[in-house]
């Protein structure tokens, strides 16, 4: 009974924390973007503007929930939910502290890769069912981009798996007690980070929703809370990738003095901030450049990383 209660607490705790982080990131992102562009960003609602997400949510919930008549209705309604569900499911394997994780899966990393691949369905279906040419182009781009970046996202973390000898995220963190994997796996980290940005289709890899060419890409036809769900999915995705970078390369909860969970969130928020900095600083590449970098640069780098890591491990035996 006590065990069940504890797990229920963890499950709903994680859900609550993730949803509030995703909402809070709306404010964090707008504030940081503002500061980096020599503005202030939203600073009126509540102290420093922290209640801005609340105002946004109230506004977005009060909006008309409109489905265009030419859309494929059931799919159109389902699509935004998929991305939120898949990303939320991925959080199940993230170890926040030694004790707090929803599921201690022995194939945690594979599970994460599987879930993030499912996320592409949301974008593809959303764009397809909208019955709008821009949405369709956005969805096609998203699919191609996700498929190509998925490949070496998986490959880039194989080095970590080899070093720690496990797919279990908990054990991967434990294996970094002596040395964070960022040092031996720097190449893997770079490739994983870039793939992560592409996976969450954030700027500079936001070609599926490139405003300057595609209106709003795959979610052109969405409004109200359905659009809000795509947004929540995007912020959840950023949080997830940041947490995984922390877990895989920066020793997860490991750190001196402060309690583990604090360390975990400090590191996570550092990467979330970096995601936003990327958005503030970098222009969007052309689509062929994106795909070319993926297959001609990132894939060889990921493979090279595996070969070298494997060779070093063999030599050290």
């Amino acid at each position, binding site marked *: 009974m006590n065990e069940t209660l504890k797990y229920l607490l963890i499950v709903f705790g994680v859900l609550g924390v993730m949803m509030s982080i995703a909402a809070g990131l709306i404010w964090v992102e707008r504030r940081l973007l503002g*500061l*980096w*562009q*020599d*503005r*202030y960003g939203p600073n009126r609602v509540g102290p420093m503007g922290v209640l801005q997400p609340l105002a946004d949510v109230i506004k977005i919930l009060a909006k008309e929930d409109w489905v265009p008549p030419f859309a494929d209705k059931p799919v159109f309604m389902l699509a935004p939910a998929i991305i939120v569900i898949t990303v939320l499911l991925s959080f199940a394997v993230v170890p926040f502290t030694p004790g707090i994780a929803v599921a201690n899966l022995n194939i945690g990393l594979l599970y994460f890769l599987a879930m993030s691949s499912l996320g592409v369905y949301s974008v593809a279906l959303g764009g397809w069912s909208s019955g709008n040419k821009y949405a369709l182009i956005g969805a096609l781009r998203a699919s191609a981009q996700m498929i190509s970046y998925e490949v070496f996202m998986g490959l880039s973390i194989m080095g970590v798996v080899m070093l720690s000898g496990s797919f279990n995220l908990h054990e991967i963190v434990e294996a970094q007690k002596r040395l964070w994997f960022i040092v031996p796996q720097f190449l893997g980290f770079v490739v994983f980070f870039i793939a992560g940005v592409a996976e969450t289709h954030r700027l500079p890899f936001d070609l599926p929703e490139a405003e300057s060419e595609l209106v709003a890409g795959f979610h052109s036809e969405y409004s109200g809370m359905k659009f809000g769900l795509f947004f929540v999915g995007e912020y959840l995705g950023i949080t997830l990738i940041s947490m995984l970078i922390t877990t895989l390369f920066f020793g997860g909860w490991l750190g001196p003095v402060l309690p583990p969970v604090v360390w975990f969130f400090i590191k996570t928020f550092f990467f979330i901030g970096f995601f936003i*900095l*990327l958005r*503030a*600083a*970098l222009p969007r590449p052309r689509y062929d450049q994106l795909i070319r970098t993926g297959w001609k640069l990132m894939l060889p780098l990921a493979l090279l990383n595996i070969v070298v890591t494997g060779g070093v491990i063999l030599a050290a035996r």
Partner: protein
Amino acid sequence: MISILKALWTVFVHLFKRKVTVLYPEEKPYIPPRWRGRIILARDPDGGERCVACHLCAIACPVDCISLQATEDEYGRRYPEFFRINFSRCIFCGYCEEACPTYAIQLTTDFEMSEYNRRNLVYEKEDLLISGTGKYPGYNFYKVAGLSIKGKDKGEAENELPPVDVKGLMP
């Protein structure tokens, strides 16, 4: 690659730069005196209404947001019976001010006109008419115009010669 890192760093440093935002309600921006803001109707220095209800402003207005009705008082002075400006339509172009022959209609520096109810943006004459002379302090239309009203006949205005006797033969 290097250029990307440099771009990231440059943007990051802007975190500590001075912000260009003017925090408006607390910090008022400088408004130039010739700003085209809320419209007023001015009075003569002696307190009479300047507007002579000539309709020129209403005709000049590109969005047709001025509406007025002319009438005349016992002295023979024309004035608007009602004068209405719909500010939800006004584009603050200032053409009305340019068209006005009497300096009655003037655009001012006030721009804080927000309303929750759109109907409140329709300003009537009581809302528009001010007690002062606005931008042209000494000007009094009837004192310079050749028009005769009760108490001021032809030729009695400032800088005006007495009317010529058209039937006389003297030069």
